[in-house]
């Protein structure tokens, strides 16, 4: 533990003050393992987090998020605010000033035209840009000179930092991608696999879903960085093998997303060649409660729609009882070890918008039983299952196939049985469950079950789009091909009004207070969402790798320019 904290301290110190003796390319090769192999380095065409992560070694946004979730300038001089005049008083535009003298890795200068082009690229028709949400509400972009970018919004934007921030919205080189707009995007194989960037490394070879090799960018803005001359970014295998390659055999310096259970974590740690690093962001594993009736007795097209309120869960006491019966700490201990922590919040971080709601952390079986009694659900026939008006308290609980989720299901079922609720479990292939195919009855959007479990989070630190998912008009149903984000069909005019208020409120404190209120409305006040665990990022770092700082708000490789070899 002492060594660990010493190393962490050293790492933190390194991140803050660049080491004087470091020299570009002096530390040889660093080997990174992503068990989900990298498919493309262009985040705009990415098919998953892994691609965004890998791309962040090469492509950079204007500003990134540090380990505390604060915006920090990467390609710009400073973060624009209303106070420093960078954000217009009426909140309809934001002006970014590029650092002078920045070069692409091919030696040409980075200009405001490249920034504007990146927006055009992602919003071009037929391009299928995966990050289009980052540019929502952008009306136009002006480039009065080579170093100034003015982003104009269609309406006042209290949070104007969505475009061009974080690993999901990097700047592409206009000269390279000019011919790849719209439908041509997917045919630009060379560009997508070897983008020219401003980041610390540049691609030397790219093998799809296998390995990416990179070399230090000779034109990187800090002449002393990066310390590593080359990067090998390998893919393949699974989380356990990835952890083993860093912690037991020492073949790799860093392995991404080594989510394994607590027992395996202890076994790997005994290998002695590395340590696990974690950081907590906003990814919350939760049970969502269906507010509509999923009964198969209803006609297709009426099941799980707002036409039929849920016969059991319309009573808030039943929902509260289900939440109270769960021992969240036990779930985390079994499933995630130090990779997660119990939570009662839908928005668990950053601190300014996280509610202080901890009431659910203590399991209360007796309290839950009492609530059900009060709600009129009693075990009248003595079979251990509560009933009311001849109807049994029996529910279907679905989730995706995953070792941890099936453990969670079994444990939760045990507690719910204890309070007299009959539970039927169902697990669905993740490709189907998360696939969103409107023809399939098993997608999480269709929600043909009483309760379901999955994890979700939001990009960056602004929770507004996330909270807006629970608006009445975002309920999935047959009329919108089941594509809404309001999964539990929650609908409360007071909630809608509050979200509207959030969309016009400026100032971090005021917005944080509103998010807290919205969070509480969904969780402790109504128990429509039952948060279980705040799942952190969890990766393995070799003892021979220095300068690594875990980050839950941006790409995990966000500070690769500061990495060095521990000798």
């Amino acid at each position, binding site marked *: 533990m002492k060594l660990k904290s010493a190393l962490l301290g050293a790492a933190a110190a390194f991140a803050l003050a660049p080491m004087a003796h470091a020299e570009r390319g002096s530390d040889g090769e660093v080997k990174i393992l992503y068990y989900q192999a990298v498919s493309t380095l262009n985040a705009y065409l990415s098919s998953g987090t892994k691609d965004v992560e890998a791309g962040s070694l090469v492509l950079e946004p204007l500003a990134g998020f540090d380990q505390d979730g604060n915006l920090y300038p990467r390609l710009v001089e400073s973060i624009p605010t209303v106070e420093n005049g960078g954000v217009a008083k009426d909140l309809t535009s934001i002006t970014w000033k590029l650092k002078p003298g920045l070069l692409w890795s091919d030696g040409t200068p980075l200009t405001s035209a490249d920034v504007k082009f990146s927006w055009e690229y992602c919003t071009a028709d*037929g391009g299928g840009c995966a990050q*289009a949400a980052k540019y929502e509400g952008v009306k136009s972009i002006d480039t009065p000179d080579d170093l100034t970018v003015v982003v104009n919004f269609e309406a006042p934007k209290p949070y104007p930092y969505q475009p061009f921030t974080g690993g999901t919205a990097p700047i592409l080189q206009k000269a390279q991608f000019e011919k790849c707009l719209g439908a041509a995007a997917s*045919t630009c194989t060379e560009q*997508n696999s070897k983008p020219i960037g401003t980041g610390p490394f540049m691609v030397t070879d790219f093998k*799809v879903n296998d390995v990416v090799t990179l070399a230090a960018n000779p034109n990187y803005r800090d002449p002393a960085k990066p310390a590593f001359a080359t990067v090998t970014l390998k893919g393949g295998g699974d989380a356990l093998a990835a952890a083993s390659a860093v912690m037991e055999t020492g*073949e790799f310096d860093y392995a991404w997303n080594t989510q394994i259970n607590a027992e395996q974590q202890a076994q790997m740690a005994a290998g002695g060649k590395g340590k696990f690093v974690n950081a907590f962001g906003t990814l919350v594993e939760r049970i969502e409660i269906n507010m509509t009736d999923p009964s198969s007795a209803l006609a297709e097209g009426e099941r799980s729609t707002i036409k039929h309120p849920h016969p059991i869960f319309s009573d808030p006491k039943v929902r509260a009882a289900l939440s109270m019966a769960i021992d969240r700490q036990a779930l985390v201990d079994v499933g995630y070890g130090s990779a997660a922590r119990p939570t009662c919040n839908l928005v668990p971080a950053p601190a300014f918008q996280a509610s202080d709601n901890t009431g659910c952390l203590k399991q209360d079986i007796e309290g839950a039983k009492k609530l059900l009694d009060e709600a009129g659900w009693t075990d009248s026939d003595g079979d251990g299952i509560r009933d009311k008006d001849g109807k049994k308290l029996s529910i279907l609980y679905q989730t995706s196939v995953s070792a941890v989720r099936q453990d969670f299901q079994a444990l939760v079922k045990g507690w719910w049985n204890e309070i007299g609720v009959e539970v039927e479990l169902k697990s669905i292939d993740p490709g189907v469950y998360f696939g969103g195919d409107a023809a399939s009855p098993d997608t999480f959007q269709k929600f043909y079950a009483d309760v379901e479990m999955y994890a979700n989070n939001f990009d960056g630190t602004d929770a507004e789009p996330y909270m807006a998912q629970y608006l009445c008009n975002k309920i999935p149903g047959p009329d919108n091909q089941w594509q809404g984000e309001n999964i539990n069909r929650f609908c409360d005019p007071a909630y809608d009004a509050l979200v509207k208020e959030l969309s016009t409120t400026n100032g971090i404190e005021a917005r944080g207070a509103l998010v807290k209120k919205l969070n509480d409305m969904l969780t402790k006040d109504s128990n429509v969402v039952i948060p279980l665990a705040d799942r952190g990022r969890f990766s393995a770092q070799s003892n021979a790798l220095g300068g690594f700082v875990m980050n839950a708000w941006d790409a995990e490789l966000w500070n690769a320019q500061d990495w060095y070899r521990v000798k």
Partner: protein
Amino acid sequence: MLTYTLRRLLTAIPTLLLISLVIFLLVDLAPGSPLSEIPLTVPPEVREKMMKALGADQPVMVRYVLWLKQFFWVEPQYLIDGWFGTDFAQGAQRIISWQSKVPAFQIIGERLPQTLTVVGTAYLVGILIALPIGIYSAYRQYSWFDQAGTFFAMAGFSVPTFFTGNVLIMIFAVKLGWFPTIYDTQLRVTDWASFYKMIMQMALPVTVLALFNAAEISRYTRSSVLENLNQDYVRTARAKGMGERTVLLKHVLRNSLIPVVTVIALGMPTVFGGAIVTENIFKINGIGAALIGAIHVSDLPLIQTITFIFAVLIVLFNLIADILYGILDPRIRYD
């Protein structure tokens, strides 16, 4: 023989077309979506646009015909262009993987070398182990060697590679640290040091696969040799006073190998197809790993292309096996 071959080739065309349609429909009807790996933070409107950009919203028959055109018309043009530097294709739309936006044939080209090296070597080593074991087991039927060989074949055939593979990794890579656990596809053999590294990283996967292949082939060899040992011509040879060595290796072996050669030829497509399980365990990232990865993310164009190439290879090697049989055994002629 020639007309027979031609006839077989011609009948293969409708068979392959039917196979391609069946594969396409199977993959398309299977549940799952190419967007299932996309984080939930991406809103539904954006997802819809992404599906559109992939062309996944088109009706299944339109996509099938497009794929046929790309596979049989566009891709060969690119192949010719690649060989002779011509420009027949003129930038026509290739078969592009939904997941990586890279042409499917480029992915196959990147994956084939490691699959051929590892699985091919394992097949070769497997044959080299299997033949002597099979022959000697038959010659000394029910001896301790035969019993041991039978045990070895049973064990090799019935213990799955995911088990032997993980056990070998656990013992020789993790505990003893002799071999690497992750296959380096970047490694080029240029000198003795890199050759040694190549041998080291191939050792475990080749062992696992060779064991599995050897088990099967040694059983075929054994039964084939056994059958021949009781033939009249063997008795004649012995009666004429030939040495056991000549009888076994010259007369019996030649005749016994005819069915074995066809079995080996029929197994060849698996060399190109890769070993899905073993490749994943040793992170070889060959064709098998590409296929299973594509299946996980419902990358239809890539699955379709790889499985169809498998189908072509299987049909092709069946034909080769038949022709070989005719060449090796003059009693069999197809005309």
